[in-house]
């Protein structure tokens, strides 16, 4: 077993060697521009791009023509939301999203709010799921788009996407789904889920960074977007810019591998995740799983270890790469807005650790991690005045704190 151990697979995943192999020819020998229509260099590149398009489409139940390549899911999400807001401005200006969405969605919506759109940020229930009746009530005749993620990047909670898609279809509202964490991990199908636009990222599925895709439905309904990047008219005019051929070959290969291996891999992920969960929860009291365990990605575990602070835990488990919802680990010095949205209290957000299990993790690594986390939490609880107070029978909610 090699240290450090990587258990932060929601942030990014290592490149699968088979993906790298598929990319290699397009850096040097086959360096052509896929838009060069008049020579062999261009044709080879175009073929690689079209193969990638098919591989992605096949994984998500789409037609290859419905795949638009981008620089990553942040761009895909920006293009989907801004592109719809611009294109359908005459029909309405209302967008519905949820409080626990990725910043790519939330900040894009906030940007549009300043430009005159009205945005509803749906709250989530304690398990992280949106309330479908609230979604139904939020839709008005001005609503043009609902943007809800497939699975959350922090707590792994899977939204009832097929139901959301059905509601949107009934009300003739477009549905964008940020499926970055779900694609390749669980079955995703744009037809049965009634998804109109869907963001995909390469580097979350053992593909390269800097490449992503946006699924744009072509039939029933035909979705139109206003381009956000103008130029040579690539990608049916929706996204200009020379195509990242090696990246696309890699993203395509990553999708092909996921399609072949997902069924077996998700069982293995869930077994490793449950092994970690059971070890931690049987050894430590006052540990809480954040978000629904039932509606959850097989590779996600997000746990709060009450009375110890996240960054100090990360310092202790320094040979295992994980992340925390603690304020001290965030750029904004605010605790995780996703965990806050669950209503569990800021103190549990400060005490949370996200474990993201991936394709290359082993049982041995999980056991090492569990042992390490248990000893660090025990050590830090010995240091924790809160743990001591609770053991003395003091109700922390009744204490007069001197907040700062």
């Amino acid at each position, binding site marked *: 077993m090699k240290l450090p151990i990587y258990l932060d697979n929601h942030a990014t995943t290592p490149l699968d060697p088979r993906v790298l192999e598929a990319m290699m020819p397009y850096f040097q020998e086959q360096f052509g521009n896929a838009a060069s229509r008049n020579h062999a260099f261009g044709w080879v590149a175009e073929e690689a791009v079209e193969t990638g398009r098919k591989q992605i489409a096949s994984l998500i139940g789409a037609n290859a023509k419905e795949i638009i390549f981008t620089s990553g899911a942040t761009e895909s999400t920006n293009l989907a939301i801004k592109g719809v807001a611009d294109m359908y401005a005459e029909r309405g200006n209302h967008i519905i999203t949820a409080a626990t969405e990725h910043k790519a969605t939330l900040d894009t919506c906030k940007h549009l709010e300043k430009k005159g759109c009205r945005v509803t940020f749906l709250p989530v229930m304690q398990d992280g799921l949106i309330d479908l009746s609230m979604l139904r009530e939020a839709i008005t005749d001005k609503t043009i788009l609902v943007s809800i993620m497939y699975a959350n990047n922090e707590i792994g909670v899977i939204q009832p996407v097929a139901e959301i898609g059905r509601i949107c279809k009934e009300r003739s509202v477009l549905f964008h789904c940020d499926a970055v964490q779900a694609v390749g991990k669980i079955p995703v199908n744009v037809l049965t889920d009634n998804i109109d636009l869907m963001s995909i990222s390469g580097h979350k599925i053992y593909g390269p960074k800097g490449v992503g895709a946006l699924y744009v439905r072509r039939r029933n309904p035909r979705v139109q977007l206003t381009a956000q990047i103008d130029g040579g008219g690539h990608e049916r005019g929706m996204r200009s810019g020379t195509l990242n051929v090696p990246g696309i070959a890699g993203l395509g290969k990553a999708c092909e591998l996921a399609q072949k291996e997902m069924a077996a891999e998700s069982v293995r992920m869930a077994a490793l995740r449950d092994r970690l969960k059971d070890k931690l929860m049987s050894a430590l009291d006052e540990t809480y799983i954040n978000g629904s365990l039932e509606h959850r990605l097989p590779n996600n575990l997000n746990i709060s270890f009450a*009375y*110890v*602070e996240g*960054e*100090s835990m990360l*310092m*202790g488990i320094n040979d295992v790469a994980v992340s925390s919802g*603690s*304020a*001290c680990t965030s750029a904004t*010095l605010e*605790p995780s807005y996703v965990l806050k949205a669950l209503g569990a*209290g*800021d*103190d549990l957000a*400060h005490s949370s650790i996200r474990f993201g299990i991936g394709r290359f993790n082993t049982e041995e690594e999980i056991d090492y991690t569990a042992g390490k986390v248990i000893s660090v939490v025990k050590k830090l609880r*010995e*240091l*924790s*005045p*809160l*743990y*001591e107070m609770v053991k003395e029978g003091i109700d*922390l909610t009744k204490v007069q*704190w*001197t*907040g*700062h």
Partner: protein
Amino acid sequence: MAYSDKVLDHYNNPRNVGSLDKADQNVGTGIVGAPECGDVMKLQIKVNDATGIIDEAKFKTFGCGSAIASSSLATEWLKGKTVDEAMAIKNTDIVNELSLPPVKIHCSVLAEDAIKAAINDYKAKGSTRKPAAGVEA
């Protein structure tokens, strides 16, 4: 983020972890911070009545590594000081000693607040404190 060697040392080998008897007339207790803010420090001092010197200092901290290190360092510095000398400890002294980056300055502020809160608690007990043995009234 990279931690300074001194922060790592205090985190890995925290000094003077523990608790003193809150009810002891010679013990001053300071608890500052709040769980929802992500840090709570409890700092306690025990003052020798005869000498006016802090004999013992203990801490427990819920917070990041820099908060743990700041309070651990504070207990080291408090021991052997008079109450007045302890009152003069500034958060900037802690920042300099531990090479804390700007985002961690609040940890040192919290430690200074905890020192002052513990001293004030000790002083507030003064009116009920029995004269120490051997000192003529």
